[in-house]
């Protein structure tokens, strides 16, 4: 899209996240080149930001503050350099802490899978996959690293009814703070977000996945690098992919 064609009329929808990925990308490209539209974008972002104040206000429980400060507080004591929180353990603790239907068996299974995958590296993960497929009614989908991340491996474990799943990845590069990995559920031209996650230095990461439509109805899955928080559609490099 040429710089001459301003995209001012698309900005409200862009900042609300209503545009499809193609339109979004066009807007982003234009914004990089056009200060006038960028100013308009920032003004609209402020409006969307202010809308948060329109929601009826409500106090969280008083324990929440403590819970939030617990993690960084203890680590900051000896910190001259900022500590890197172990996201995997935080997330795992989080799963154990918030039961939802049908997840318990999955979590136990996930944990076992993670322990195993921690021991078995590289090609062995595919043996694990075969093993799991024989022993368990859960579906296990192997994900292979692309040229961008040839060492990376992953498995997506899908519950019997197909509505819940867990993604375990290994040997993915740790990203800088501005980026996260995002899982995509792929059917034809459609890309549905399965959630965003990060990996620590070890390259391990875990994501609990659920979807409006059964995960087993998606023939393919992919993981891309996206700006922190994720994108409406894939925009970054693909690092892992696999088929049902």
């Amino acid at each position, binding site marked *: 899209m040429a710089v001459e064609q301003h995209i001012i009329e698309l900005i409200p929808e862009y900042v609300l996240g209503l545009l499809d990925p193609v339109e979004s990308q066009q807007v982003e490209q234009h914004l990089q080149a056009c200060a006038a539209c960028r100013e308009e974008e920032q003004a609209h972002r402020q409006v969307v930001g202010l809308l948060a104040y329109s929601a009826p206000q*409500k106090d969280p429980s008083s324990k929440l503050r403590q819970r939030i400060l617990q993690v960084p507080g203890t680590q900051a004591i000896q910190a001259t350099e900022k500590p890197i929180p172990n996201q995997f353990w935080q997330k795992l603790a989080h799963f154990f802490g918030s039961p939802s239907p049908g997840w318990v068996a999955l979590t136990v299974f996930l944990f076992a899978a993670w322990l195993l995958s921690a021991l078995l590296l590289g090609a062995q993960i595919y043996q694990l996959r075969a093993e799991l497929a024989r022993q368990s009614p859960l579906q296990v989908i192997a994900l292979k690293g692309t040229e961008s991340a040839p060492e990376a491996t992953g498995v997506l474990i899908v519950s019997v009814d197909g509505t819940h799943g867990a993604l375990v990845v290994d040997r993915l590069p740790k990203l800088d703070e501005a980026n996260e990995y995002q899982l995509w559920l792929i059917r034809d031209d459609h890309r549905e977000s399965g959630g965003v996650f990060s990996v620590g230095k070890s390259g391990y990461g875990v994501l609990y996945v659920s979807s409006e439509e059964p995960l087993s109805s998606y023939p393919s899955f992919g993981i891309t690098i996206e700006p922190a928080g994720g994108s409406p559609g894939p925009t970054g490099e693909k690092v892992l992919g696999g088929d049902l």
Partner: protein
Amino acid sequence: MDYHELDDSYLVQLITRAHADALGELYDRYGRLVFSLAFNIVGDEAVAEEITQDVFTSVWEKAGTYRSDQSRVSTWLSSITRYRSIDILRRRGARPEQYSVPWGDLHAEMIPDQISTDERAEELILQKRVRAALAELPAEQRAALALAYFRGYSHSEIAAELGQPLGTVKTRIRLAMQKLRNLLDEEDHA
């Protein structure tokens, strides 16, 4: 250091240098805003608390990505909150029980006058400003915008929900946002 006196973006700078007290102060200022927004999107207190925890954890980890020249800290926080909440809403595949989105009756929803601190006072002023601006929108524009903002609906989902053509929905959202931009921007410079 008296964290109470520091401005928002300086607090975020301190957080990048692992000052846990700065995170505590930021929570005292915006924890309620973040939690309330999450609650109004997902309609569940426990989930809203998890989201709030998640938002402040990611602030701790990613404070370096904040750009003070581009947005207020509250805008940054609310955008992380809104994105996460909508993502969870979609992934759960369930809609909140009490289906109605806020803004049903902006005139009737009075804001309590319990001003205890300066920060709360500022928060209440912002709430009143934003609600007054929303009250100036035609009801049908407000309804379309509410579904986009609080439910993360796409154009076609909004059209289906409101029983209106897609083009009408798009126009309403654009007009609503432009009017809000003018109303809230004018006041910024007033």
